[in-house]
């Protein structure tokens, strides 16, 4: 029972009274009612159940001789090779170059997309010019530009960062513009009748109202960035997580390839958690209900 009643006079939440002596009788349909909200510890347990089941299934199928161990290693073998990679093969420097590429390209993408998205979401005439143009660019697959980028920029970091940038920047502009456009008109009109000029309203209402939405959009687009990373590092790269995986393929080190996949997954998750923390720390006024 997490429903809260709101006391109109004080705005404080009142917890419903729950009998404490006898254990409450479980209603029919207790396990699978619609729209239930679960306490945190139960969510953690359920999440762990999913993961443990996955690893068990993986380990069991790996031991069942469905495929040669070399081609289908179990989780234990993969974690072993992960340890070897970090301790003996300097995998950390690969990880660091990958993170550097992601962060550099994403910072540039945000620096380009934020002003454009803010202006497009605020002014219909800016949107009228840029939306048809940038909206169309979204549908051009970034990897299709690899041959061009290789010729223009060579095989170095700038080519990889440009590819990552192209993969996210167009989506980012359109999505940030959408977030900006959701600013309630009545807030803008209130600011106008309080004497706010265009520049002041742009910053103190539209930008400020959209800020949580911007952070959330960046969190989602960063996940897309990680998918382009592997593509960028598979082509003519000497370092990075993707490059390591391509080297491993040449020697049929499937456990190393899987270790690379796991590393990317964990890193992606860590960045996601980081953005969620920023969101919660910076926007306490949204409350828990996100209303």
């Amino acid at each position, binding site marked *: 029972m997490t429903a809260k009643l709101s006391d*109109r006079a004080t705005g404080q939440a009142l917890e419903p009274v729950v009998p404490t002596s006898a254990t409450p009788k479980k209603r029919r349909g207790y396990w699978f009612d619609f729209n239930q909200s679960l306490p945190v510890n139960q969510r953690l347990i359920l999440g762990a159940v999913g993961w443990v089941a996955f690893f068990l299934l993986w380990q069991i199928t790996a031991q069942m001789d469905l495929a040669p161990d070399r081609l289908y290693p179990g989780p234990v073998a993969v974690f072993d090779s992960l340890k070897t990679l970090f301790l003996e093969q300097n995998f950390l420097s690969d990880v660091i170059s990958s993170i550097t590429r992601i962060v550099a390209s994403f910072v540039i993408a945000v620096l380009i997309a934020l002003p454009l998205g803010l202006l497009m979401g605020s002014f219909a005439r800016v949107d009228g010019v840029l939306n048809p143009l940038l909206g169309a660019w979204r549908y051009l697959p970034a990897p299709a530009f690899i041959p061009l980028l290789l010729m223009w920029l060579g095989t170095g970091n700038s080519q990889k960062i440009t590819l990552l940038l192209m993969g996210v920047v167009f989506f980012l502009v359109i999505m940030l513009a959408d977030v900006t456009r959701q600013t309630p008109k009545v807030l803008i*009109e209130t600011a106008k*009748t*309080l004497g706010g000029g265009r520049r002041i309203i742009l910053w103190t*209402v539209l930008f400020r109202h959209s800020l949580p939405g911007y952070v959330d959009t960046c969190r989602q687009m960063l996940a897309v960035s990680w998918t382009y990373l592997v593509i960028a590092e598979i082509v003519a790269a000497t370092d990075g997580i993707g490059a390591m995986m391509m080297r491993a393929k040449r020697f049929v080190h499937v456990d190393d390839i899987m270790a690379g996949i796991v590393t990317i997954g964990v890193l992606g998750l860590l960045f996601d958690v980081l953005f969620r923390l920023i969101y919660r720390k910076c926007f306490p*006024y*949204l409350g828990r209900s996100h209303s």
Partner: protein
Amino acid sequence: MPSSNGLSISNVGKTFRSGGRDIQALENISLELPAGKVGVLLGPSGCGKSTLLRMVAGLENPSEGTITLNGRAVDQPGRDRGMVFQDYTSFPWLSVKDNVAYGLRINSDRSALNEGTVEHFIRAVGLEKFADAYPHQLSGGMRQRVAIARTLANYPELLLMDEPFGALDPETRWQMQDLLLGIVRKERTSVMVVSHDIEEALYLGDVVFFLSRHPGRLKEVIHTDFKSALPPNDREAFLQSEEYRRLELHIRRLMQDEGRDAA
């Protein structure tokens, strides 16, 4: 002749284009609201009363006619005409205190900020205990108090309100009406309120402008001078007075006529 003191609306009309057709929302409205008075725009839904208020705010432009406030023509929104909306408009990222200070900050009004204007109006609406709270922690009535304090702290020459208490439950609405009248009398602010509630209109207004619809026209101007003979802030006495009953019945009949025309 429009007087130079107060709000003056002369021959104002508004035509919207919709689906290739012109729709006349307001036709030839002329009215005067002297400074320091409370005016109410009352009428059935669709009579264009909110549109008229938005034109006074400068958020929309009239198709014909002119609007002047204290002798100056209105053509865009400005600090002199602060508006309170029916929707909750507290900025969710600002505390109550910062919401109330918003208008003075964006106008760089250092002197008003230093003189304790913000604290004065937070006290006036009875939110001193909630000065550091965020809007999501407040009830609907409290959020409207924030909106009123924020608008008044900016010292508008005319306070505009578009059905400000329409979303509140009856008891809170009555409280807010008394609160508003108390502040407005003390600060001598001019107010124009849009309402569709007859009791609210007569209780708040010194002058009630009744608008008819399709197109919106000014049908009748009702003065509520009878209230000066009543004890102040006494809703019971107001509701039981003979004048109130007479005017309420009169306006109710006007409303019913409007309803019949529409049907």
